[in-house]
């Protein structure tokens, strides 16, 4: 009696396990929460943006979007995890220019546009070129003139080698034909501190960090690298307006592993498109100093490819 009862229980358990393991009946995607892998640690602007996405995503996706942190290797660890994941749309990467274009090229890591299908670009952060409030240059062009007359004299504080400040400055130097002294700092705070303390002349920062410094007269913004002016810094011209053909922004996008079925990508894209219109989402992103800038799968694949090719030239030139 007792044995048979145990046996029944075991059978039942086995059946339950089998049921759990077998593929879900052809239910519509998404049938379970979708994981959004963040290839960085907590707290950066990338993390904050991902959490803003996740906070509204369930309304448009019909399932929760779970942010999973997989930091390490300049973003390569998290990126590779998604590439190796089953291409079923349940594992996405919250990728960006930093890991998936620049790091991929500089470190020759296979985590670029060849390994992913873009789902949607969410936003981008334009970089703001800023100098100390008492600096002799009132405009971007004046600063470039100075650098031209005094090659290598302009001390530029970047926020880390190949980071969000280093890269646009390399683009500008190439377009304007200037030489400057490139000093790497460990992040945006230390770089800004170096400029404020007079240990460097210029850096790139992000708007919410710079606005109070500008209001107090400590810093002056000379140009932004985006295609348009920033809504919260409308008085600051773009680099292009100043006469140099450079546009550069750090994008953030949801990326799926190669081989994800087009129908699934379309579904996800549609959810992200609606999410990008959400009012509370837009407000959160704005507080972080960015504007939402949606691009769909096909459109963004093209943007990314173009960026990749420009970046490859810069990286190639620097490595020589």
């Amino acid at each position, binding site marked *: 009696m007792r044995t048979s009862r145990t046996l029944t229980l075991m059978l039942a358990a086995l059946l339950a396990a089998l049921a759990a393991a077998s593929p879900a009946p052809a239910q519509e995607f998404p049938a379970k929460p979708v994981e959004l892998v963040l290839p960085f640690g907590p707290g950066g*602007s990338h993390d904050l943006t991902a959490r803003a996405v996740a906070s509204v995503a369930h309304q448009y996706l019909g399932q929760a979007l779970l942010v999973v942190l997989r930091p*390490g290797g300049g973003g*390569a660890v998290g990126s590779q995890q998604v590439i190796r994941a089953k291409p079923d749309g349940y594992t996405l990467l919250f990728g960006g220019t930093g890991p998936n274009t620049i790091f991929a090229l500089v*470190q020759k890591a296979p985590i670029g546009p060849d390994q992913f299908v873009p789902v949607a670009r969410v936003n981008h952060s334009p970089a703001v070129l800023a100098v100390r409030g008492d600096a002799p240059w009132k405009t971007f062009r004046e600063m470039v003139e100075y650098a031209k007359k005094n090659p290598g004299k302009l001390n530029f504080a970047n926020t880390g*080698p190949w980071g969000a400040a280093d890269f646009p400055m390399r683009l500008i130097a190439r377009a304007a034909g200037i030489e400057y002294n490139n000093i790497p700092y460990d992040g945006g705070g230390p770089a800004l501190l*170096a400029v*404020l303390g007079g240990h460097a002349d210029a850096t790139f920062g992000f708007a919410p960090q710079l606005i109070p410094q500008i209001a107090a007269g400590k810093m002056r913004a000379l140009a932004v690298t985006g295609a348009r002016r920033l809504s919260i810094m409308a008085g600051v011209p773009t680099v292009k307006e100043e006469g140099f053909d450079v546009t550069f922004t750090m994008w953030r996008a949801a990326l799926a592993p190669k081989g994800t079925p087009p129908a699934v990508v379309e579904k996800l894209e549609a959810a992200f498109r609606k999410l990008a219109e959400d009012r509370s989402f837009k407000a*959160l992103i704005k507080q*972080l100093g960015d504007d939402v800038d949606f691009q769909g799968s096909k459109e963004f694949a093209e943007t990314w490819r173009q960026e990749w090719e420009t970046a490859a030239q810069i990286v190639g030139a620097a490595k020589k």
Partner: protein
Amino acid sequence: MEILSLLAQGFAIALTPTNLAYGFVGALVGTAIGVLPGLGPPATIALLLPITYGMAPTSAVILLAGIFYGAMYGGSTTSILLNIPGEAASVVTCIDGYQMARQGRAGAALAVSAVGSFVAGTASVVGLMLLAPPLAAFALRFGAPEYTALLVLGLMMVGYLGGGSMTKGLMMAALGLLLGMVGLDPIMGSPRFTYGVFKLSEGFEFVLVAMGLFGIGEVLVNVERSTVPEVLKTRIRGLLASREEWRAAGLPLARGSLLGFFVGVLPGGGAIISSFVSYAIEKKLSRHPERFGQGAIEGVAGPEAANNAAATSSFIPLLTLGIPGNASIALIFAALLIHGIRPGPLLVSEQPAVFWGLIASMYIGNLVLLVLNLPLIRLWVKLLEVPYAILAPFVVVFVLVGAYSVNNSVFDVGTTIAFGAVGYALRKLDFEPAPLVLAMILGPQLEAALRRSLIYSRGDLLVFFERPISAALLAVAVLLLLSPLVRWAFERRAV
């Protein structure tokens, strides 16, 4: 008197039932994550950040700041009880704190560290309130050459850590410098010693190395000895510290607080540097330096005071310049941004409620932490009465789960185990692991600062001697190096 009325307004904000509750919760969560190895304050603050979206900005800051400085209180607990440094700033506490625990004085070490944290934390808030603007101006004068000089001085102190031979300490420091090289180099971003493993491109995570070398290493050594239970048994000679112990701890507490307060203002690893510089100073000043490493209360009091004072004063760059000095404070910065407050040079005048509310909450928070931590000491000490055969596996699980929680990575668990084996070997050969861990933290910082200085000066080494602060710091370093020689000369003349 204006300050007093502003402070009174601050207390009016911090003492509202909601803010009081948030301050308490922050202190409680902070203590808990300080005790748990692995998950540090930045990760916890990031997790809790979304909860603060709906709160008033001052409440959000009170909660998050409480987590940050609360963790500094909790961090010493596992260092003293189990030789597991929960965060960077408590590595130094392991050295003498754990030895005290082995001699049955865990209660005393914990009490001195709790009271010391309270005294240092409170003194540092007073300093923050009165001296923030001039100190921020001082921090701005610290460019790369000044950091280089400070780090040179700091690295020299590493040799003083622990009670063993100086030669062995320097060997460990050299090994630590080498381990610190692993990863992308800070100036060019080229990979070094990564052997194509992307996981290694950010270098070894400090917490993992420390938990392995100290925590796991200690368990392995203890498991070998059959006498352990007797050694660890707490002979309760008065649960808390005795009068002599308080007397011995007094001056180190005061010196540690002062040192921590000033070094903590500098963005970067202020808390870490101040903790072991304080240890070195106490050892240098002591009439019985040989007691250090064997359970000297001064070796717990000074560094604990220093790291708590530094945690508080590290708010100064955020509050007066609008620039966060470390990862936790960067998250508090983000919390303010989300609430539409942009911290900058004008924060104090434009948002007095945030500034003074935070200051007042820090006075209250430090008191809460003291009241919370003192009764816990009895409980912690009881933990040591658990037979080691039962305690040891729990410690290992505790450490490995902590290691996994840092990055959710099995690779990290492997790293911790590997460093545990290294820690065991070092202990067997009578090497002290603290210099290794600290050199591993300081090495990359020194390299970056040095190379940054030389890029700035275009290769001119005079940059270190032309600037007054860096010249003065280097002069101290030279004097320190020469001091044994001078003493030797004096002694010879006396004979």
